[in-house]
């Protein structure tokens, strides 16, 4: 189909981790190389479709890191986002991997609900983002310091279906494994599960990008005739329909005959589209 290839051939997933100890196993697993180190450390794979940023600790740091990454991508409204790190939980065993199904900012009380459309091969739980490290565990929820900042900011750019938080339990009422080595080891244990989530997000991101891609011919039309802003919106809609109804016919050629100006072009495309007939089997 006539889409700009680079726009939809791959999806993108951005991973945000607070600490180098959390990021290290992900960098090794996804073969990420350092690509930028001005304010944040950013790592990407060779296809530049899996990126990781080390945000530092806290809600604002996570929010800042998300904003920073969005500036590097021109199609960031269809990116996948993943916050990977460690969290405390009153009773879950240390080392358990959990996806957040509800994220509450303890400071404001505001809550976000990552859409549960992925097949998480592990459990999900509520999560509370607090300002300061605590070992006062909430009942039945993970507790950590970044997710609310990460989620609230990422959802300004992408959609809830593509934004998720994965946390490995690092401490509970009876046990704490908070040193860097333990954190790296615990994340390493779950790399296969993280990878399956990354792949699901890449697929969703790619599909979304493909769905939203601008028809390739639009640019040719805009270069050839002069369209007002309203007309170019109309043209874009017509070209989308065109590629579904007449995938084999080049719309430029179809519109060129007898079209002196943009109005003629729109009229000619419009008539072809509204006169088209359809078989039940094509629906």
């Amino acid at each position, binding site marked *: 189909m006539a889409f700009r290839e680079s726009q939809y051939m791959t999806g993108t997933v951005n991973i945000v981790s607070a600490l180098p100890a959390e990021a290290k196993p992900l960098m090794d697993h996804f073969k990420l190389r350092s690509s930028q180190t001005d304010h944040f450390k950013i790592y990407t794979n060779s296809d530049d479709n899996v990126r990781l940023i080390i945000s530092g600790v806290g809600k604002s740091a996570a929010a800042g890191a998300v904003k920073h990454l969005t500036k590097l991508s021109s199609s960031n409204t269809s990116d996948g986002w993943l916050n990977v790190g460690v969290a405390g939980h009153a009773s879950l065993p240390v080392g358990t991997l959990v996806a957040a199904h509800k994220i509450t900012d303890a400071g404001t009380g505001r809550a976000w609900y990552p859409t549960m459309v992925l097949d998480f091969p592990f459990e999900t739980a509520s999560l509370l983002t607090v300002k300061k490290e605590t070992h006062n565990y909430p009942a039945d929820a993970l507790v950590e310091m970044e997710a609310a900042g990460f989620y609230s900011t990422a959802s300004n750019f992408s*959609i809830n279906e593509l934004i998720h938080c994965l946390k490995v339990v690092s401490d509970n009422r009876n046990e704490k494994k908070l040193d860097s080595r333990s954190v790296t080891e615990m994340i390493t244990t779950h790399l296969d599960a993280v990878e399956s989530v990354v792949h699901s997000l890449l697929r969703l991101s790619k599909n*979304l990008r493909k769905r939203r891609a601008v028809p390739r011919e639009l640019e040719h039309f805009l270069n050839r005739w002069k369209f007002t802003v309203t007309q170019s919106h109309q043209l874009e809609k017509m070209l989308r329909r065109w590629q579904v109804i007449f995938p084999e016919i080049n719309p430029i050629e179809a519109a060129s005959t007898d079209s002196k100006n943009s109005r003629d072009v729109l009229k000619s495309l419009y008539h072809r589209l509204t006169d088209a007939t359809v078989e039940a089997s094509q629906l």
Partner: protein
Amino acid sequence: MIDTIYIEAAVRQHPRTSVILSRFPKARLIPCERYGEVFNPRSQDFRIQKQRPALILAEKFDNFILPAPEGFGIGGEENFYFSHILNCLYDCRYCFLQGMFRSANYLLFINYESFMSAIDRKLGETVANKTVTFFSGYDCDSLALESVTGFTEAFLPFFRERPRAILELRTKSVNIQFLLDSEPFDNCITAFSFTPEEISKKTEDGVPPVKSRIKAMNQLAERGWPLGLRLDPLICHNGFESTYRRLVNDIFAAVPAKAFHSVSLGPMRFPTAMFDTIAKLYPENRLLAGPLHRSNGMVTYQKEVEEEMTQFCRSLLSEHLPTEKFFHCTPWC
């Protein structure tokens, strides 16, 4: 079928919540304060959610009963609709719900008794001998999620006692067991909507085959329940005459004409903004690509095409039913 259930804090202890939760012992339960936190956020994608919709259990506080759109009716002197649930089990490509809500999750308002009180209030406001129709399948399919909602089980006894309140159950499902197990009464109309099998297979994902629905109609007719037939929306395609003729013939070969309380025909129409939202969700879809036409803020087939299809189907139906049974119940006409 449902693996995630959001529950508003206020309905956590509601007896209907317990019944529903007992049907999904393995579901992930997520508490929320108000359903809007889950259902309304801007950054959601209806199409992706539709792959795996969650259930939201909530309480409704107002606007229980709303006036039906102008000209919408099946013989009652006044017409209203109510929505105990928003969204649908099925996935019809022409469904306006895709363009209306940001979320594809099933939002179920479990305080049925509040809907009933509002219906009583509405009846109280109307002249005592007037018939009033209440459409229940406007923002959903009335029966498709019956096994989850227990909607007919709760509402049939209520309407049975109020003969001047006509209940329309609008459906494409075959979930009719509760109706078959109940004594029929005249003021509950089970209205089945159809497109021809060839169209249904392509555009109505998850909907039971036409044959099964005709069988369900026949079972209800034999049991004595009044039926409605809705050819809605009429879908334009080459050879529509033969596909619609076959559909109508198949229906009337199986279901006695006297069982029909009403029939209606509905063109495919969308307000422009709603259509644009839907077309963006499914840009590759052939049905939505047309031939469609924009005029007066609506997206429709060309007037002549629409009229030709309507006239043709009207004459098909007139072979079986008197014109007094023809009504109009399509929004935005």
